[in-house]
């Protein structure tokens, strides 16, 4: 079995890494990472707008934003992929490749989830920050821009990174609409070999594990570092456990949801 696994990797490492890239579409782990980076990168600015809309006192803004978040939290990602795959060609009037449909889906879906992280980050800051900024003559938006968001976004870096890990895991759903990414590459290999499904998909699971585990460790390290840094300033949000400052579990839990 180990020899089979070795042969699968030795024969197909390029397909798993970049797909059929120079002669075909980008695939493999490169496409998976590109999908996740595009998804999170484009969703991030959108998510700040959604979070600000949700926190705004005007129902015209807060209602649609709240509705968007609840719909995305309540409907399976696969259903949203189907919607985008169906609606996007109608909107722009031509056939859409699976990759683009997947990026659009991830942007909408992740924007909703990231906006919850941003909202929790803003609400976790002491209220005095906003009051002090307003007292110094900032408008609501300018206080958000220069006082609240820079602090909130810094504290949110670990949560955003863990959302990035979730996104990597969610790109596997592209397999259902034949987006050439890592899972798709593995199923191609399986279709060629036919006799070693366990070995092929074991390799697939190991690659995902290696990528996501590394990023999770990085997230945990950043979380500890940022918590320690914040302990130097105000300790109101922090708890000291075994001499190490950590963000209160309630805060983390709220942010993680």
């Amino acid at each position: 079995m180990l020899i089979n696994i070795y042969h699968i990797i030795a024969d197909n490492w390029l397909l798993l890494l970049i797909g059929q890239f120079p002669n075909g579409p980008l695939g493999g782990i490169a496409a998976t990472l590109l999908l996740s980076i595009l998804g999170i990168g484009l969703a991030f600015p959108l998510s700040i707008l959604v979070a600000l809309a949700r926190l705004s006192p005007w129902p015209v803004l807060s209602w649609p934003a709240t509705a968007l978040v609840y719909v995305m939290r309540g409907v399976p990602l696969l259903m949203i992929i189907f919607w985008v795959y169906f609606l996007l060609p109608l909107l722009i009037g031509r056939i859409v490749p699976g990759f683009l449909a997947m990026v659009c889906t991830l942007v909408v879906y992740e924007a909703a989830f990231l906006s919850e992280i941003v909202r929790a980050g803003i609400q976790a800051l002491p209220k005095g920050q906003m009051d002090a900024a307003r007292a110094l003559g900032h408008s609501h938006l300018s206080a958000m821009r220069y006082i609240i968001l820079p602090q909130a976004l810094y504290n949110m870096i670990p949560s955003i990174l863990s959302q990035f890990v979730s996104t990597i895991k969610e790109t596997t759903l592209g397999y259902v609409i034949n987006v050439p990414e890592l899972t798709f590459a593995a199923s191609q290999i399986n279709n060629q070999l036919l006799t070693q499904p366990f070995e092929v998909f074991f390799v697939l699971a190991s690659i995902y594990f290696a990528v996501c585990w590394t990023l999770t460790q990085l997230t945990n390290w950043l979380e500890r570092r940022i918590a320690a840094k914040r302990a130097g300033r105000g300790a109101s949000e922090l708890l000291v456990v075994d001499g190490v400052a950590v963000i209160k579990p309630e805060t983390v839990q709220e942010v993680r949801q």
Partner: protein
Amino acid sequence: MSSLDLSAILLKPEYSRMLLDGFEMTLVVAIGSWLLAMSLGILLLVIRLAPSRIADRAVAAYISYHQNVPTLVQLILWYFGISSLLPLGLQDWISVHNGEAIFAVIGLGLCQAAYFSEDLRSGLRSVAAGQMEAAKALGHSYVSAMRYVMMPQAVRNALPPLINHTVSLFKNSSLAVAIGVTELMHAVKEVENQSFRTFETYLIATLVYLVCSLLLMAVGAWLSRRSSPVGAT
């Protein structure tokens, strides 16, 4: 495109039957894997509480694997990979008894058990250590203190993430379509192919998923409110 006409799907017995059967299978997969996940999650927590480093490491590895590998990949590995390693007699038995659904329940259940177990563990850790000492001082044994003092508080603390993960388990049941389970997503594709009414079919399925998820969230919020101690915030 013709105008929106939900009755073209809902009032046609063959289509509504397909969707209903699909929804029933979604519920079977979701409830079956929830039960498996919850019992396994509790078992993993109990193993972790035992004073053995090896057991602790093993459970940590189990959880790390299931949280870092995409759920869809786990399902594919079960259905295409692990099934091929089973003895032939068992393989035949499973494929006769709706093997897709069995592996979907196993895959989703084992995966979600990791999350449930972590939720319960952090719930338990947020109960003050003094509670255990006080219970023991009052004459409770370790097991009875766990049962009557620690766990009720731990479950209460763990309710919000448990509810969230229950909702995502329900949503993840749609992944079973990738290994050929005839659940709601599968029925949606069938009805869409036969009726050519994509918009209406998707809309109905989306509403079904949304209503179920919102109901779960509402029940969760009600449970949290009901179980929080009087006077506490």
